[in-house]
């Protein structure tokens, strides 16, 4: 199958990232955009751009009719869904294929199986992949929920059956909180996924979130591209990811890799996918879910393997057999990603809206920054508040941490708060440096007071500098006959 033109049914950094690979492969690109994104970089970078509607996602990036019509109009022979939006919507995949356009991703059937956590677990169980104890069917009502939660034992986790990205997910520590958390989870799930079904499972304490990247072609070949450690999360959403994981040795890596490939086989998976596991304190792993798309954090895997995952997705969609074998795959060095969100870590990670008055990302050897923003742009309130992904790659973990800290220090943003300060806190934290952390890191180790303390020495230095400048200036003003060259010299010092 020939692919000459790809429409990217997404926005921001991921749209740009896909277009870069497409362009390198001599494939034309078509962007779609909403009202809020008229001037966005992904629109200008694309070979063509088609307006699809109002800013609110349901009128634009979630609107299948408009996106398929745009693909037909532009003559695109394939659609890449990116992540989020319609990427894991089986109806969309089916409708794209029915329109005679190649969907760059798995079949609608695979998405459907893995998109519903209950059928996903059933499929995985058939291949003897270990599962976290929990309900196999959606929870009907509060009484049912109470009964199930009591059976499993608190704390329990309420999850949206159609969920992902932390939406519609709540931890409940005691029965008296169950009702409110249930209704919040159901309502969030309804508004985010159009499906309010939830289920309940055991909340594993001290869990590490480890996921395995897989690639599977249309000819029955599948490989895994090792793990990503994604335990640094807030609101059950990842902020920092790294590969490889310090906890995983080659025998566990092989076992989890095999389990991941089994999960892919269980749903006849084709394309790039990610199988998520929880790893408990005893290093036992449990299948969580499979993400049937490209992940936000895919760059860390690209760094340590040297493989362009988007290129692989396109090759697989063209029907080519995998051009890499498991034996050829190796881990080179260590990579860390920090998601730069427009959020205030000092205020419970509340969204921080505003204009990017200053926006100067760092550059340098081993630094990759994937974004879709520019200085002067406004952060739109309609979409995910991620500015970009800061990724570093170095020979080993210690050097990667150092490189990330330097990259964070060299990243200038003004106008909004970001998770860059949080990143610095985490990477300086002894528990992170030792690799001894789990998904409770933020609640256990982080607070706005500790974040403040992290920056206190810097503030003091800046305050001293400001006072020096002020006093120097004051002394000069008191000397009306001061030589003008001295004036210039003293000012220049601080430039």
């Amino acid at each position, binding site marked *: 199958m020939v692919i000459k033109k790809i429409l990217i049914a997404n926005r921001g950094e991921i749209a740009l990232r896909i277009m870069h690979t497409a362009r390198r492969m001599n494939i034309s690109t078509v962007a779609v955009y909403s009202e809020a994104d008229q001037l966005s970089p992904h629109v200008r970078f694309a070979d063509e751009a088609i307006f699809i509607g109002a800013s609110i996602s349901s009128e634009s990036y979630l609107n299948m009719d408009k996106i398929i019509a745009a693909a037909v109009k532009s003559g695109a022979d394939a659609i890449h869904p990116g992540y989020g939006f319609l990427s894991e919507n089986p109806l969309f995949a089916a409708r794209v294929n029915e329109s005679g356009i190649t969907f760059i991703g798995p079949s609608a059937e695979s998405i459907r199986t893995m998109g519903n956590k209950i059928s996903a677990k059933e499929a995985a169980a058939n291949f003897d992949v270990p599962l976290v104890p929990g309900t196999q069917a959606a929870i009907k009502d509060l009484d049912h929920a109470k009964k199930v939660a009591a059976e499993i034992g608190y704390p329990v986790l309420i999850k949206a059956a159609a969920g992902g990205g932390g*939406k519609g997910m709540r931890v409940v520590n005691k029965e008296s909180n169950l009702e409110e958390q249930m209704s*919040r989870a159901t*309502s*969030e799930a309804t*508004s*985010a996924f159009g499906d309010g079904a939830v289920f309940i499972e055991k909340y594993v304490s001290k869990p590490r979130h480890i996921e395995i990247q897989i690639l599977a072609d249309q000819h029955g070949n599948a490989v895994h591209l090792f793990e990503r450690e994604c335990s640094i999360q807030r*609101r059950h959403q990842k902020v920092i990811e790294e590969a490889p994981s310090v906890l995983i040795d080659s025998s566990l890596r092989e076992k989890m890799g095999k389990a991941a490939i089994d999960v892919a086989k269980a749903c006849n998976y084709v394309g790039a996918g990610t199988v998520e596991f929880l790893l408990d304190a005893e290093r036992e792993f449990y299948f969580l879910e499979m993400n049937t798309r490209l992940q936000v954090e895919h760059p860390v895997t690209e760094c340590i393997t040297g493989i362009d995952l988007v290129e692989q997705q396109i090759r697989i969609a063209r029907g080519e057999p995998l051009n890499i074998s498991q034996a050829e795959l190796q881990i080179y060095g260590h990579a860390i990603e920090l998601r730069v969100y427009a959020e205030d870590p000092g*205020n419970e990670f*509340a*969204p*921080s*809206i505003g204009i990017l008055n*200053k926006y100067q990302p760092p550059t340098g050897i081993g630094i990759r920054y994937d974004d879709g923003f520019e200085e002067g742009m406004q952060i739109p*309130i309609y*979409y*995910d*508040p991620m500015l970009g992904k800061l990724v570093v790659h170095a020979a080993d973990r210690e050097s990667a941490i150092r490189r990330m800290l330097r990259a*964070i*220090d*060299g*990243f*200038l*943003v*003004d106008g909004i708060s970001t998770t*860059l*300060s949080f990143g*610095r806190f985490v990477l300086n934290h002894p528990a992170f440096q030792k690799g001894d952390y789990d998904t409770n890191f933020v609640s256990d180790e982080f607070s706005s007071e500790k974040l*403040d303390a992290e*920056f206190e020495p*810097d*503030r*003091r*230095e*800046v*305050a*001293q*500098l*400001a*006072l*020096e*400048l*002020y*006093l120097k*200036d*004051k002394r000069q003003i008191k000397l009306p006959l001061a030589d003008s060259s001295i004036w210039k010299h003293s000012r220049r010092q*601080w*430039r």
Partner: protein
Amino acid sequence: MDTFKILINEHQIDLSEDDLTKSSLSNSADSNEHRIKADEPRVLNSEPLKKRFLIAYRGQIYRVKIQDKNDLLIDQMGYTQTQGTKSEHIKAPMPGLVLEIKVKSGDQVQQGDSLIVLEAMKMENVLKAHHDGAVRVVNVEKGQAVDKGQVLIEIE
């Protein structure tokens, strides 16, 4: 020795001229960390007459305002403590959409009661009462888009 109050991004640091001689910046030789040029603070904007400085340092931007003893004196004279009524304005912490309003005018609320559910960036945020009181007025309707800082509910 004069002391100064330095206001720096919502924080306050008290410094005297004496502290400056100990500054590691003016004497980088005693710093055990090797510094390269990029590590040094950059003055983005300098307004010494207004005692205001804008300084970038290690990825952060600092807005600095210096107050000397005269400023502090003026502050003290102009400062009158008001024993305000215990009224509370529930403001939107971010722009968003009002998903649900759980109270109406005249309702009695207790500290911690949920008042309003606000959706922003696909997350639902429940705003709660900070102390007991009666709802004086609800300024918004369900489905309404609100701006950051907009007063949603007034409690007294």
